[in-house]
């Protein structure tokens, strides 16, 4: 056991790290976020024991909502075993002592960076997104004073111009992740840098979605069953990327795939980005076209080892 673990056990820090006053402040911001879907509520984000940009917004939101009976799943890039997911999960195991899981269906709270699980979320689940830049208009207009006005006036012309320029230049909209959406026919929102593949999942989602941006000090939310429309044009409708192959390990189709380079001779494999989903399918006997390949087999085994812990 290291020193940090001892400090938490000695009760130097509160349950889930944050003090109660900070939790109250964050909780009030969450309530406003839910009441005004897609609107970015300013909140007095705290310094956390992990750096800004590494999930401090998500961690603060999770810490504010988490109870001792919750079961937490922590993912980064779709996977439970990437380094930062391991680190953040360890943080809550230490500070809150809550149960954690890799299984999407078992979790009551899921904190994520850049992906939404493939398995459909339920009404009794909450998904917390880590957000780097919450302002969808930021790269078109760097000034907060200006973007705030645009949201107030529902003036999203600039965003449409940008998307249209994409089409004029490239023949299609060249935004592949952090693809802007309009929430409840009012606010344009950044769904965080999830690939646009996941955008359809946030429309009418049964689970409550909370978004936390620590460095930028904003919280926003999408209540369950809320209309979320990816921005597009009548003649250029929104479309998600499609992979022409199934997952190499489990054979799943219509899921988001990571490209894994297997050797230095151009050998590569596409596997589920959602590692829990892939595991479960393989456990159920599904086999992908690459499952027998030795390099692929090794990759799958390493993953399983991490997962088994």
């Amino acid at each position, binding site marked *: 056991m*290291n020193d940090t673990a001892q400090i938490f056990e000695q009760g130097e820090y509160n349950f889930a*790290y944050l*003090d109660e*006053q*900070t939790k109250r402040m964050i909780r009030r911001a969450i309530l406003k976020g839910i009441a005004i879907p897609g609107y970015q509520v*300013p*909140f*007095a984000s*705290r*310094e*956390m*024991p992990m*750096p*800004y*940009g*590494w999930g*401090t917004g998500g961690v603060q939101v999770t810490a504010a909502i988490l109870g001792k009976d919750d079961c937490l799943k922590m993912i*980064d*890039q*779709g*996977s439970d*075993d*990437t*380094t*930062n997911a*391991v*680190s953040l999960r*360890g943080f809550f195991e230490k500070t809150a002592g809550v149960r954690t899981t890799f299984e999407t269906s078992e979790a009551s709270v899921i904190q994520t*960076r*850049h*992906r939404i699980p493939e398995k459909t979320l339920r009404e009794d689940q909450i998904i917390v997104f880590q957000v*780097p830049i919450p302002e969808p208009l930021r790269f078109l207009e*760097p*000034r*907060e*004073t200006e973007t705030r006005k645009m949201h107030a006036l529902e003036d999203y012309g600039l965003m449409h111009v940008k998307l249209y320029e994409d089409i004029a230049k*490239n*023949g299609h909209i*060249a935004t*592949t*992740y952090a693809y802007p959406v309009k929430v409840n026919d009012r606010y344009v929102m950044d769904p965080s*840098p999830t*690939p*646009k*593949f996941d955008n359809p999942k946030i429309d009418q989602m049964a689970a409550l979605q909370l978004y936390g941006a620590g*460095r930028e*000090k904003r919280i926003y939310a999408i209540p369950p069953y809320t209309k979320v429309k990816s921005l597009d044009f009548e003649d250029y409708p929104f479309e998600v*990327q499609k992979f022409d192959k199934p997952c190499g390990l489990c054979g799943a189709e219509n899921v*988001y*795939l*990571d*490209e894994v380079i*297997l*050797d*230095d001779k151009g050998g590569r494999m596409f596997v589920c*980005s959602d590692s829990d989903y892939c595991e479960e399918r393989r456990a159920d006997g599904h086999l992908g076209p690459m499952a027998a390949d030795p390099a692929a087999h090794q990759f799958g085994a*390493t*993953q399983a080892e*991490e997962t088994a*812990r």
Partner: protein
Amino acid sequence: MYVAVKGGEKAIRNAHKLMAKRRRGDTSVPSLTLEQIAQQLSHAVARVMGEGSLYDEMLAALAIKQARGDLIEAAFLMRAYRTTLPRFGYSQPVDTAKMLVERRVSATYKDLPGGQVLGPTFDYSHRLLDFALAAEEDGLEKPVETASPEDASMPRVTDLLGDEGLMEPDPVTDEDAPVGDLTREPLSFPADRDLRLQNLARGDEGFLLALAYSTQRGYGRTHPFAGEIRYGEVEVEFFAEELGFAVTLGAIKVTECQMVNQFKGSAKTAPTFTRGYGLVFGQVERKAMSMAMVDRSMRWQELGEEQSAPAQDVEFVLSHSDNIQATGFVEHLKLPHYVDFQAELDLVRRMRGEWFEKRRQEEEEGDTAREAAE
């Protein structure tokens, strides 16, 4: 070769162990004590207290030791600790006119009431490596005779100018008006001067230095004179509601810089000099001066000046001054981004496919056209 893309708990644990080992270095060399750091690296300690926004020399020394001398990392450790501490309220404003002064210089007067006190400074030293320090051993150092802090009355230069009406008056604020605090309310714009000064006081020394320097090079000139720089000890008082009077909590060392800047005036108001203000923990003069210059630059609107330079841009300056935020976000690029990258990879492949296809078609059309012409 197979490249592992996913790390795990074991990898993190091992990395932390290795880091602990590297931090300690060769165990045959004695470990640094916090006292040594606090005493002998006092400028580093002051910087970490200022940017970490917490005045505690021993904690800062610990942070520096833990961070292996990475001062931004150390400031970050201080901030993360500070945020867990309970808040009791706000202190009374410190009165720097009552400072127990160790150093006080003015560039605007040859001599002034209370005198110039050079005090401890690198100024006027020759920047030659002192190899005697390398040979220094415990117990062999020669005692250095020093003067004790000045307790003579030292009115502030800006007050002297103010008495003659030459300096714009300090803005009169309602004593009961709440003071802005960006650790409790997120920054929103326009930001008043209290918030701006708080932001600058916590801001990165290097960032403020570069901005201040840019104003000297013409990006928003403010014609500054170092009216006064003073360093020393001030008392911190807290008004205790239940007692009905202020009690002293302790003393802190601060550097205060008052810049005297270009005058303003109009048909209605007589010309006066204008102020820029800097106040930091410890002896961090470079930052106190930079802060005062950037503070003055950001007052362009109130003083009816034109805005043309980065140092005047309040939103730009305040949004990027915090090195804890900056380092976090820059360094977060080390985190895996393969999901987003995959999306981009996919798009670039598709666009390249389209590009080659288009070129092939054009070539074919060209060939057909040539054939037709032949």
